[in-house]
């Protein structure tokens, strides 16, 4: 179907019908009948052609039924009806096409952000190539106003980058050497030299597009039911039509059934809402992986938060060091060495501090062992070193006197995590690590509570630190000292009590809990493939305040879907009643049918404009740059 000519065809047929009506009005019947015929043939030809092509593949299409109805109408001399049916059918599909395009506009606008070209250095010369031809390890130059053509690491230069394509945030982020940049983001001002690390289909941007595309076609539960219903709808209407004809010999009635046999509005009611809802989120850096997840997210009754990296910034730093018969640098050096294989975020803080103090080394420990939820044991120069929490020390009979107990207690009350270091059974020191609480956390929790959600915190950290953080953000129910599997068990326990549980984490350390929850939500998904794979909802930007909006959006999408389905079912009933009571005939049947499809689509389009209500501005002041965008 060529839509351009389709638009013309619609207008020509429309003009024909008006002319014919004018002739009818002045009782010039022959002329009006001829023009109705012309209109029927004009508009009916593409329908009949489609019908015929489908027949050759043994498919009974809606077009075929309409064609039969139209031929029947011509046969019994209802020329105005036949013209109106064909005209309404092509007008309807034309308008539906145009409006459907709009529901899918979010994905299209994302697609438009894709980078087209790249500036690379080849044999010492700068040249411009297509973005898809960039290879891993290529050195890219990106100037002000240009798009980053691949995911990579900054090797030189400094710039403010607009990462809206990835995170939905338009406030430019500062990038300097060693920072990650993403394909599709735009350099607002500055200049960067970047080494390409992920290209083509592997970039975060491509993954987002694929994810959104797949998500928009992941069916909601309700939808599956409706589709089953729709599969039987057309055949049953056909049987009804034939049955009615045999019993009543009323050809008009039988033909009208054919016209209303497409369950258009019904089948489209759920998918259009889902597309619009998911599209709305995608533009704001919120990726919801499909219809069923949208339905579940709308029903969440309890939200569990991980602490580190979720309620806190997740950049732990060494805040204080206490030593026992050892120098601070020695303690740091040995701890860093022992922890050098560890993936733990607390280990990272120790390694960073050691590097800062210049005592980091490349030597690796022997017999490195991780004890989940407790700490690590490693051999250094033949000595066994234990680094971990209270459980770890108690487990290995490390003696801890009252002074130390008091010291640890005070640190924990301040919201710090005390990491103990022992050589064999001798305690050698305590490194306190603190992590800033997110400025927007308290407000987010408040909004969630206001929306009637229960909020809890699950953390592997110690009781006192957990209590401090929980109090600060306004969570009264928290569970501390949990191992990853205990977090999972806790979630299962909540589910068993009949609650729909959402789990919010960073998607890396708490993957099992995120996978277990009814809805797993990962924050700061940009650049972390693990999070993008395990979570059901991904907040690309590391911004918690998007969470209340995400849940509101899910609810709005489900509401929209329900409105559409209710409306579509009502129309089906109305049409059946109308046809059977002979108040609806060919043209009016087609009109109601096409209108209902359009109304369903238009209702879904409202979702694209959905904005959260009652969001108070949260101050996350991170040296905001005000720039005047030179492009819309």
């Amino acid at each position, binding site marked *: *179907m*060529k*839509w351009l000519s389709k638009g013309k065809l619609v207008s020509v047929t429309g003009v024909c019908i008006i002319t014919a009506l004018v002739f009818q009005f002045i009782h010039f019947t022959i002329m009006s009948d001829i023009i109705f015929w012309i209109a029927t043939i004009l508009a009916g030809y593409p329908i009949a052609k*489609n019908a015929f*092509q*489908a027949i*050759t*593949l*043994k*498919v009974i*299409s*809606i*077009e075929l039924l309409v064609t039969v109805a139209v031929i029947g109408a011509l046969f019994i001399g209802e020329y105005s009806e036949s013209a109106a049916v064909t005209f309404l059918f092509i007008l309807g*599909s034309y308008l*539906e*096409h145009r409006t*459907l*395009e709009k529901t*899918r506009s979010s*994905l299209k606008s994302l697609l438009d952000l894709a980078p087209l070209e790249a500036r690379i250095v080849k044999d010492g010369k700068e040249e411009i190539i297509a973005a898809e031809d960039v290879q891993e390890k290529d050195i890219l130059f990106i100037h002000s106003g240009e798009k980053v053509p691949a995911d990579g690491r900054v090797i030189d230069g400094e710039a403010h980058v607009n990462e809206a394509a990835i995170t939905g945030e338009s406030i430019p982020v500062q990038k300097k050497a060693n920072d990650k940049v993403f394909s599709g983001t735009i350099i607002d001002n500055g200049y960067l030299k970047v080494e390409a690390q992920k290209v083509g289909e592997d970039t975060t941007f491509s993954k987002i597009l694929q994810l959104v*595309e*797949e998500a*928009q*076609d992941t069916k909601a539960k309700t939808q599956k039911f409706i*589709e089953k219903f*729709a*599969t039987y709808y*057309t055949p049953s209407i056909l049987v009804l039509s034939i049955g009615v004809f045999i019993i009543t010999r009323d050809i008009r009635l039988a033909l009208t059934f054919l016209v209303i046999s*497409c*369950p*258009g509005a019904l*089948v*489209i009611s759920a*998918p259009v809402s*889902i*597309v619009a809802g998911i599209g709305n989120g995608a533009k704001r850096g919120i990726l919801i992986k499909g219809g069923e997840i949208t339905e579940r997210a709308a029903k969440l009754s309890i939200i569990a938060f991980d602490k580190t990296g979720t309620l806190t910034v997740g950049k732990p730093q060494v805040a204080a060091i206490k030593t026992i018969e050892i120098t601070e640098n020695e303690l740091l050096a040995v701890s860093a060495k022992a922890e050098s294989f560890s993936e733990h975020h607390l280990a990272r803080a120790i390694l960073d501090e050691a590097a800062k103090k210049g005592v980091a080394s490349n030597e690796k420990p022997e017999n490195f062992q991780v004890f989940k939820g407790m700490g690590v044991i490693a051999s250094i120069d033949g000595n066994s070193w234990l680094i971990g929490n209270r459980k770890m020390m108690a487990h290995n009979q490390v003696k801890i006197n009252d002074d130390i107990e008091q010291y640890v207690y005070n640190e924990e009350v301040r919201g710090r995590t005390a990491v103990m270091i022992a050589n064999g059974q001798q305690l050698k020191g305590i490194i306190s690590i603190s992590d800033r609480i997110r400025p927007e956390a308290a407000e987010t929790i408040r909004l969630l509570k206001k929306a009637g959600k229960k909020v809890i915190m699950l953390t592997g950290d110690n009781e006192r630190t957990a209590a401090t953080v929980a109090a600060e953000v306004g969570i009264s129910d928290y569970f501390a000292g949990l191992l990853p599997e205990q977090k999972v068990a806790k979630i299962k326990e909540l589910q068993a009590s009949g609650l729909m549980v959402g789990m919010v984490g960073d998607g890396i350390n708490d993957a099992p809990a995120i996978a277990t929850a009814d809805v797993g939500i990962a924050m700061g998904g940009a650049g972390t493939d693990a999070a993008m794979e395990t979570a059901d909802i991904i907040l690309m930007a590391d911004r918690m305040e998007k969470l209340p909006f995400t849940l509101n959006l899910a609810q709005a999408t489900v509401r929209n879907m329900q409105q559409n389905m209710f409306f579509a079912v009502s129309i089906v009933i109305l049409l059946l009643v109308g046809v059977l009571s002979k108040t609806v005939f060919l043209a009016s049947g087609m009109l109601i049918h096409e209108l209902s499809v359009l109304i369903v689509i238009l209702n879904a389009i409202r979702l694209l404009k959905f904005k959260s209500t009652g969001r108070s501005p949260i101050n996350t002041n991170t040296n905001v740059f005000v720039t005047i965008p030179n492009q819309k």
Partner: protein
Amino acid sequence: MKNITFQVDDFICPSCVQKIEKVMSTQPGVNEVKVLFNAAKVKIKFDETTGSPEEYEGILTKLGSDVLSKKIS
């Protein structure tokens, strides 16, 4: 086994999705058909020795979906 993705003109009625799925899965060489209604894409997994992308394209056109682009991988 090869994959081909057709980008077609927007689908109007989701029932055409079921139609395409049904017809395509009976074609020679076709192993798996996935029709993405919203993205207006038809993804076919096929055996290149017995199936032909040109034929599939012809069938899509016959079913009233114009093929805008195709990608074989």
